[in-house]
């Protein structure tokens, strides 16, 4: 009980869940636990079962794409206050890239299987979660598009 109360507080302190109604935070806390990753360890691997998502409390996590014959390409870094992973929300519930701890990383891991069951039973919880995840997904999609635009590339047909 004490553990859940503590997790409840940690969840409430995380920016991703700022303003979360207390009853919803209590529901979520039932699916949460503290997980620590040493630097260099994978948080998850591409193709793996997306059975958890993480609230980053401390440290940096890199999102990486494996490229055959090359070093993994780092496409994003996530910091304290960020959320890691949304593949757990949508079938087939598989991670689409690698996530690796760049430093010592402390997270709150939320059990997605437990949570999906609660989402089905509690539409209000589903709404609370989706209204938090959708802006994050939108920001990251926009960022990915800008990265794709290769803003800093050498101008073609340069004058001067």
């Amino acid at each position, binding site marked *: 009980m004490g553990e859940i109360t503590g997790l409840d507080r940690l969840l409430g302190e995380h920016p991703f869940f700022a303003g979360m109604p207390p009853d919803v935070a209590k529901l979520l806390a039932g699916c949460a636990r503290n997980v620590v990753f040493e630097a260099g360890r994978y948080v998850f691997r591409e193709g793996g079962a997306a059975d958890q998502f993480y609230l980053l409390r401390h440290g940096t996590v890199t999102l990486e794409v494996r490229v055959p014959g090359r070093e993994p*390409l*780092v496409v994003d870094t996530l910091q304290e206050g960020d959320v890691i992973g949304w593949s757990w929300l949508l079938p087939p519930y598989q991670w689409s890239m690698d996530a690796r701890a760049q430093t010592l990383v402390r997270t709150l891991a939320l059990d997605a299987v437990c949570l999906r069951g609660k989402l089905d039973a509690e539409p209000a919880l589903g709404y609370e979660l989706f209204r938090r995840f959708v802006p994050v997904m939108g920001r990251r999609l926009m*960022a990915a598009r*800008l*990265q794709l635009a290769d*803003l*800093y*590339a*050498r101008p073609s047909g340069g004058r*001067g």
Partner: protein
Amino acid sequence: MSALPLPAGDALLWRPEPYRIERVRRDLADTFSLDLVPAGGGAPLAFRPGQFNMLYAFGLGEVPISISGDAEAGGPLVHTIRAVGPVTEAMRGLRAGAVLGVRGPFGSHWPVVEAEGMDLVIIAGGVGLAPLRPAIYYALRHRRRFGRVCIFYGARTPDDLLYKAELKRWRGEFDLVVDVTVDRASHDWAGKVGVVTRLVEGGGYDPLHTVALVCGPEVMMRYAARALLARGVAREGIFLSLERNMKCAVGLCGHCQLGPHFVCKDGPVFRLDQVERLLAVDEL
């Protein structure tokens, strides 16, 4: 046949002054800095942060280049140049001792004096850090006159970060927030990866009392401005440095026209509300 009259009192603006290259620095694979001193001796011309000069490679042509040195240091005139065309490619091949023509300084400047008393947020993308460096020098030299000072810098890859040694030094200052990100990196890069606009969310500055100076590719500046507005910074507090095809540098030839503005004369530094609507117009 008589020559066209020059604007009264501005005749000197048309005549390049010879400057000798005192030192060449290779900043990046395609980017270099030239320290210039008057070939005939004396002090280099005075300028304000954000202004540019027209640099003339004799027999090849003239290009507008922002001044990237310290406006108050009194040393050589520093220009950081990306080789993107025949004139700048030729300049890349020059060595110390060679002579260039210099006209200037031209254009508007970063409102660093007007920003005193406020938090200062400097957002640079790629070689856009060069025109902002004089503003950074000003903020460092007069640090106590500002609130929080944040430098957010984005580049394509870690190899494309300009002024790495200075960035490290600035990062070591206790009263300066320096946040750097790159668009892509291999695993050995220990810094951030992601677009520079995301850095705007951090820094701990007070958006209601912030002046933001932004320079980089135009798309990046548009999105940076949006991120600043979303954070609560007023339009009147956001300044961008625009780049157009500047030729005469005094607002006569019209090559750099942007709606009602000549970028060479009315810019390159504009307040966001002066140009926001124009930046949304295709091919303007």
